[in-house]
């Protein structure tokens, strides 16, 4: 039984679209249907994105980030001073490598010396490519000085800890990078050896380190000469 008063019911039922309104809405609806059907006929190249799940999106994003990061890191490894990625190499790649590699003062000294070698090689590459302008020479020189000081300090720490002279090649590299002079290196070496005593040991060590020194000079002599590290020597001078 309908509880609505008849007049109210009639009135409510009289509310409807006018013929014009109904026809206009119908036309709009048909136009929309045709348009969307036509649009659907040309599949979008991005429709796949509607069907992938959030977990897949997250995984893909991670893959992209890791992939991008890895390729950038790899690309940065070959960067030279003055390149955009050089800072990625020195401020990201190498600190991470340091964290992974360094387990003791000896490995730390070895690592820092290795970095110094790298810096020297970079300078050589720049020189070979004739990119070593005055400004870049100055900054490369500073970087090598800084790195050799760091390596020298680490070698000293490692020697203090172990009580023996270690890493003759490393010591030579550092010394060459800071003094570029065979004679001053010998003086330092003798000083160090005499602290420990024993002529035979001194001779053996001296010979060994001399060979190492020659090898380093042979390898990096040209660039060291070019960089002329002696000319602006400051805090990196051997102070012992």
């Amino acid at each position, binding site marked *: 039984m309908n509880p609505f008063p008849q*007049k109210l019911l009639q009135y409510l*039922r009289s509310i409807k679209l006018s013929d014009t309104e109904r026809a206009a809405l119908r036309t709009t609806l048909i136009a929309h249907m045709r348009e969307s059907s036509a649009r659907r006929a040309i599949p979008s190249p991005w429709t796949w994105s509607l069907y992938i799940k959030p977990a897949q999106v997250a995984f893909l994003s991670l893959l992209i980030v890791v992939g991008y990061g890895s390729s950038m890191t790899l690309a940065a490894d070959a960067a030279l001073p003055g390149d955009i990625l050089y800072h990625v190499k020195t401020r990201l790649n190498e600190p991470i490598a340091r964290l992974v590699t360094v387990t003791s003062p000896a490995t730390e000294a070895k690592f820092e010396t290795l970095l110094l070698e790298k810096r020297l090689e970079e300078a050589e590459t720049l020189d070979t490519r004739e990119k070593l302008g005055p400004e870049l020479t100055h900054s490369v020189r500073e970087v090598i000085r800084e790195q050799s000081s760091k390596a020298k300090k680490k070698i000293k720490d490692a020697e203090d800890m172990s009580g023996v002279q270690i890493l003759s090649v490393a010591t030579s590299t550092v010394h060459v990078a800071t003094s570029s002079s065979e004679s001053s290196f010998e003086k330092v070496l003798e000083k160090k050896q005499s602290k420990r005593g024993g002529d035979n040991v001194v001779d053996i060590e001296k010979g060994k380190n001399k060979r190492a020194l020659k090898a380093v000079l042979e390898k990096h002599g040209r660039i060291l000469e070019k960089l002329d590290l002696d000319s602006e020597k400051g805090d990196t001078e051997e102070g012992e």
Partner: protein
Amino acid sequence: MKDNSLEMKLLVAYDAHADAIFRHCYFKTCERELAQDMTQDVFLKVWSYMQQKHSILNMRAFLYRLADNLVIDWYRKRKSQSLDILLDEGFEPVETDSKIEEQAEIAHSLAKLRELGADDQKLLTLRFVEDLSPGEIAEIVGQNENTVSVRIHRAVTRLRDLLQ
């Protein structure tokens, strides 16, 4: 199903239910143009839904549910308009040429109807103005058919009490 048959299906539904959906929206919004827009939106949404290969079991109930959602969205945006204002602003049928006395009687009945809660008003108009079955109303309001029948019965009793 191809687009042509979908179009036909939707146009049939439009011809059959456009007025009812418009009335449903107009009754709640009191704005003719807005109700027209909502009616159009309802059918456009149905079309999108159909294109996504979703099946619609009860088209009529589905249309009302979409209309309800649109009205709810509109209420959220504009809380001022309601059935209360419908009377304040003079809910006058443009199409009819009712006399003043009749209009007063209608206004009185509407005033009684508005004393019911919004849910009861909705149940009663769907059942007695739109002639929907309790089963269809149950589908629209998302409740059990028996519950809806009981609620309609109680709403009828309340309206009768108010009208007496």
